[in-house]
């Protein structure tokens, strides 16, 4: 009998929690208390984070020297491509009023230089850079091969435009293996400056690490106050497309050279969250009160009716 009844129910669906949609579950529902605690808590968190970040960003010492105008003569010269043989140097003196303590980094900074153009970013050959195949230049348009049909090494627009105080654009005067005459290890595709340049920047204004302060002897504490000057061999034309150039010296904190932005953003967010939570609290209580009064009024009215 039992067997028969089982046969008869041969099409009975499986009784599993999944198929019957009865999986045990936690029902997420935001109650008023939960909402307010989330708001207040994140407000507090953001405010504290913001203040902390602002303070640490303030502790950074930074010097930026924009030499686009200072070296205006050189810039003029470079605007004309026929002058590429002429050497133009430019000296920028500056005063460091306060000593920079700790590690000091030197950056070059470019304004309005579009390293993030689609065709620009694409114009490189990773196979070549990995030394897998030096002739793999198919991605490197428009700098694939020289007019003698010899493949460029390194090929592509990025490599070709490398910002280098000593090379002259648009073509490399020096072969890749002579980039650093002082250190034979730091040459070829492994040259630090070359690697840094090849990591294209996300925005048209960017800075790239150029040198670190070698902390020995006199500089063991950092960069002491005093008079300094940069001697720049001006090679790189940027004024034509409204670009600018500068040199930056900077120290760091725990979070790197964080700018004020994150700190400010956190602070503003925290403040806004607090404001919003107070506003919401007020609305919540106001509505609650009004509801209570209306329902009281309604129940009174109902009572009145029933008495009639």
């Amino acid at each position, binding site marked *: 009998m039992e067997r028969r009844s089982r046969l*008869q129910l041969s*099409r*009975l*669906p499986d009784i599993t929690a999944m198929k*019957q*949609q009865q*999986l*045990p*579950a936690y*029902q*997420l*529902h*935001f*109650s*008023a208390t939960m909402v307010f605690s*989330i*708001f207040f808590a994140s407000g507090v*968190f*953001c405010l504290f984070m913001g203040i902390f*970040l602002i303070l640490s960003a303030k502790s950074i010492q930074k010097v930026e020297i924009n030499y686009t105008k200072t070296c205006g003569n050189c810039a003029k010269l470079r605007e004309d491509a026929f002058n590429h043989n002429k050497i133009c140097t430019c000296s920028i003196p500056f005063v460091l009023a306060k000593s920079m303590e700790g*590690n000091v*980094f030197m*950056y070059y900074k470019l304004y*309005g230089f*579009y390293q993030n*153009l*689609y*065709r620009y*970013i694409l114009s490189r050959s*990773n*196979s070549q850079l*990995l030394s*897998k195949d030096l002739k793999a230049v198919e*991605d490197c348009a428009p700098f694939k091969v020289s007019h003698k049909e010899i493949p460029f090494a390194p090929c592509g*627009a990025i490599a*070709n*435009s490398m910002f280098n105080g000593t090379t002259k654009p*648009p073509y490399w005067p020096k072969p890749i293996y002579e980039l650093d005459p002082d250190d034979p290890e730091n040459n070829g595709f492994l040259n630090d400056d070359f690697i*840094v340049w090849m*990591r*294209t*920047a*996300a*925005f*048209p204004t*960017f*800075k*790239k690490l150029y040198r670190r302060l070698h902390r020995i002897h006199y500089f063991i504490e950092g960069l002491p106050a005093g008079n300094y000057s940069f001697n720049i061999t001006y090679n790189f*034309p940027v004024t034509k*497309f409204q670009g600018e150039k500068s040199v930056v010296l*900077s120290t760091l904190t*725990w979070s*790197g*050279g*964080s700018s004020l*932005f994150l700190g400010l953003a*956190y602070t503003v967010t925290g403040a806004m969250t607090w404001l*919003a939570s107070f506003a919401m609290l007020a*609305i919540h209580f106001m*509505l609650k009160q009004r509801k209570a009064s209306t329902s009281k009024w309604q129940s009174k009215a109902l009572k009145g009716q029933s008495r009639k």
Partner: protein
Amino acid sequence: MSVSEIPHENRQNGGEKRYLKANHEQVSVFFEYPNNTIKTSKYNAFNFLPLNLFEQFQRLANAYFLILLFLQLIPQISSLPWYTTVIPLVVVLSITGVKDAIDDMKRHQNDNQVNNRSVLRLVKGRMEEDKWMNVQVGDIIKLENDQPVTADMLLLSSSEPYSLAYVETADLDGETNLKVKQAITCTSDMKDNLDLLSAFDGEVTCELPNNKLHRFTGILSYKGKDYFLDHDKLLLRGCVIRNTDWCYGLVIYTGPDTKLMQNSGKYTFKQTHVDRLMNILVLWIFLFLIVMCLMLAIGHGIWENKIGYYFQIFLPWENYVSSSFVSSLFIFWSYFIVLNTMVPISLYVSVELIRLGNSYYINWDQKMFYAPKNTPAQARTTTLNEELGQVKYVFSDKTGTLTQNIMIFHKCSINGTLYGDVIDKTGEKVAVSEKDKIDFAYNKLADPKFSFYDKTLVEAVTKGDPWVHLFFLSLSLCHTVMSEEKVEGELVYQAQSPDEGALVTAARNFGFVFRSRTSETITVVEMGETRVYQLLAILDFNNVRKRMSVIVRTPENRVMLFCKGADTIICELLHPACISLCDVTLEHLDDFASEGLRTLMVAYRELDNKFFRTWSVKHGEACLSLDNREKKLSIVYEEVEKDLMLLGATAIEDKLQDGVPETVMTLSKAKIKIWVLTGDKQETAVNIAYSCNIFEDEMDEVFTVKGKDSETVRQELRKARSKMKPDSLLDSDPVNIFLAKKHKALFTMPEEAHALEGDVELELLRVACMCKGVICCRMTPLQKAQVVELVKRYKKVVTLAIGDGANDVSMIKAAHIGVGISGQEGMQAMLNSDFAFSQFYYLQRLILVHGRWSYNRMCKFLSYFFYKNFAFTLVHFWYAFFNGFSAQTVYDNWFITCYNLIYTSLPVLGMSLFDQDVNDTWSLCFPELYEPGQLNLYFNKKEFMKCLIHGIYSSLVLFFIPMGAVYNSERSDGKEISDYQSFSLIVQTSLIWVVTTQIALKITYWTVISHFFIWGSLGIYFCLLFLLYSDGLCQMFPNVFQFPGVARNTLNQPQMWLSIVLIVVLCMLPVIGYQFLKPLFWPVSVDKILKRIHYCMKHPLPPPIRPRRRRPGLRRSAYAFSHQHGFGALITSGKTVKSKALKKNSFPAKK
């Protein structure tokens, strides 16, 4: 015969007529008639790939992505590598392909099973068993009892007298009563003589295959004579042979030519409202995309002019670019490719998967499984789920849907005594239980399925109460039921209406067994003693008379008239002597009616011989008269049907299906309007409407509209409308609706559909929509569909039609959603339905639970899906302003490829398969929760705009916070962090966090699976990140994987995590705030209920609110008759009366 013998004219006529010759296969081969194979499958192994791909690319979205792919292959504008589109497209196509393949495999299996059934076929003078698919036109086939008919064939001969064959056409048209087919005499003489049958070489010329079920014309030429053939001689494929031992047939149409297959029209593809909305939105997105591309192209032109032209020192223009204008032309298309993810590629396939999953839940639902019939609910269409959550109108059939179409003899009143209630010693009514069932063992001819509980009636019968005996005798005589007794003592009744069957069965069990009938006699076994009554006349039932009578001569040579009919009619015909009895009986009838029982009064009259003889002459004259026959007959009938002596009344329960009143109540609480569309007559329909709560007593008056021509109908409708609301406003007026809620309307459709013509239909719709309950009676299947179409056309709401019979098919097909009840009547309704189950009350679960969940899930899915793609894609737009509008993407190509496919697909699928805001108990407890679906509140164009705005906001945050964080900033080791790859990684990681937290906020029902999917897909993201950015892959394919080491270099940077935290906070808080404030500022009715449910969930469950079943207090008359004409004419003509004795006698022709 060789082919050359085919008459010349028939060869030429091949195109217009069908010509065939029995037992001549060559003819069939010559005309290339198909064999009896049917094929419902679409593909085979070879054509699957091209055909399926072709079909899939006909879809707009797929075609769009194909075009996109070709655009990407043009190097000048290609801004993304080919694989970003190909991989998702291939995945999408293969998922759909696999689904189609599985569906088609099932069809192949079904086809094979049908084609391989075996049948007896006449080959070379012998019957041989063969497969169905081998049957050819011109073959002679033998069918036995209960066998399905193999192909459309001409009935040649049968085992029954007069070569009759009985067929059940349930699968064809849904009618369960048997139909009679008769062979023509020249072939019926062959009987089962195989020699004669093999020698038979009749030639048939008939019409070409068509889909008309009730039409067939042809000519059989045999032995030089022509015989006319019509559809009464044709057995159609899909019928089942019943009550016929064997029959032979000549195959005329085979396989695809059969009327069944010609009728199985192409499935009309039903689109849901969400589908249509989705298409519109995709179009919007497309336009939005083009506008964005234009803006960016213009931006690019300006940039190229001002800066790009000079930047050529470092990046010269391509040689095909001659000016900034040309360049921006290319950029337009490049951005078209970059921003293509605005139109989400996986949208359609995800929607399909979600619907499929939600359909499976319906199949799996154990609470929609009907154990007695072993039938689970079935979602036959897997593309309509969310529409179930938006139903506003339900059109229901009555018989078999609201009612079980089972009539049960429930109570009776005999000579002023009420029988049927079980009363204990204190005089209280007792609920009956199965063990109290009366044992009719003393009566060998009793029907074992019959049940009755009141012992007093049996006692009265056994004691020999003359009134009780007369009562049951009249029930056993006054009817048009036919009996069949295959095995001695096992009677089977064939009744035109189930009511009659119930009454005769009751009489049978109480000892007055109707055993057999001829055209002139009725044999009754009265308390074990066989008596033969002479049948003198049947005064048949019709709608005006509302009664039927028989006049019989008893063995004692008394002439008696027995009459049964509607109480209102019989009361007027009673002899004045039984007025007091009539009053008592009417009281009982009130009781019966209040329980929703169908009642009949039973009366008799003894006629004296002389009176009868004169009447009989008049009757004969009336029968023979040519004009006004009906009228004359009814006058003659009235002469004899008077001065009746009342015997009593019967009460038959038209059993409602389980839980029908409760379901109707729940659905109307969910603001779903239920209209009953029935072919039945007004009284029964109203009675059922009251008993299942569609009409309630509190409602105001009933408007009955039953004009015969369009003018009267219009006037009636106007009157009704002005009564409900004097200055007839449009029904969209809220006041109007409120007033109208109390009314109920009743439409009786006249034979011609006047009410469905032109401007009357609008009037009808207006009135009907103002009423709370609407019943349309006397509907033909076509009219049912017309009413559905009417509502569909003018109201723009989702309609659902539910029915069980073939007469409901048109309505089921017309409605947005068709639900089939797999019940008593054939399979036709179920086969045409989108959802099928076996009990009406599953409808509330289907709509309120599954429909609501599906709708909510789909809406959540859509709004999230659009949002996540906006947030994802619009970042490129902002970035354009910083990269010279050069079509540079923010993200790595692999991220673009995997974003929709891997990183974000599982959580959203999990949400749309498992999420439930409240569980099924609450959904049923508070049907009001259903309302947002009807109003389409959860996803519409406004919600879409919100998604767009939300997406824009998120993309702004996602772009500018990381930008601010890395801009002018350095890593903790002094290197720069503002390089493209690190920035890209920060944005994409933040994006993943943001969309994941957003979905976490959307999910209300956190199951283990949700946790697994959400944390799992975050985990997968980070795992894939390390894999795709690993040195190994990069070493192998340096040009494909261009981000080596970025993950490990950047993920440890504080800027990265600080930005992620800030972004998540900024994206999450406004959403939480909005969710909190929305019900405060813009409350919808549902919010209150949800609040109450959340409150209740923290506290113990209240007892589920059971709707109180109301007892209708008003007396309503519903008499138990089928609305069709009875079998009376057939019986007296003797044609269908099967009796072996008759065979010997000459056939009594009585015309």
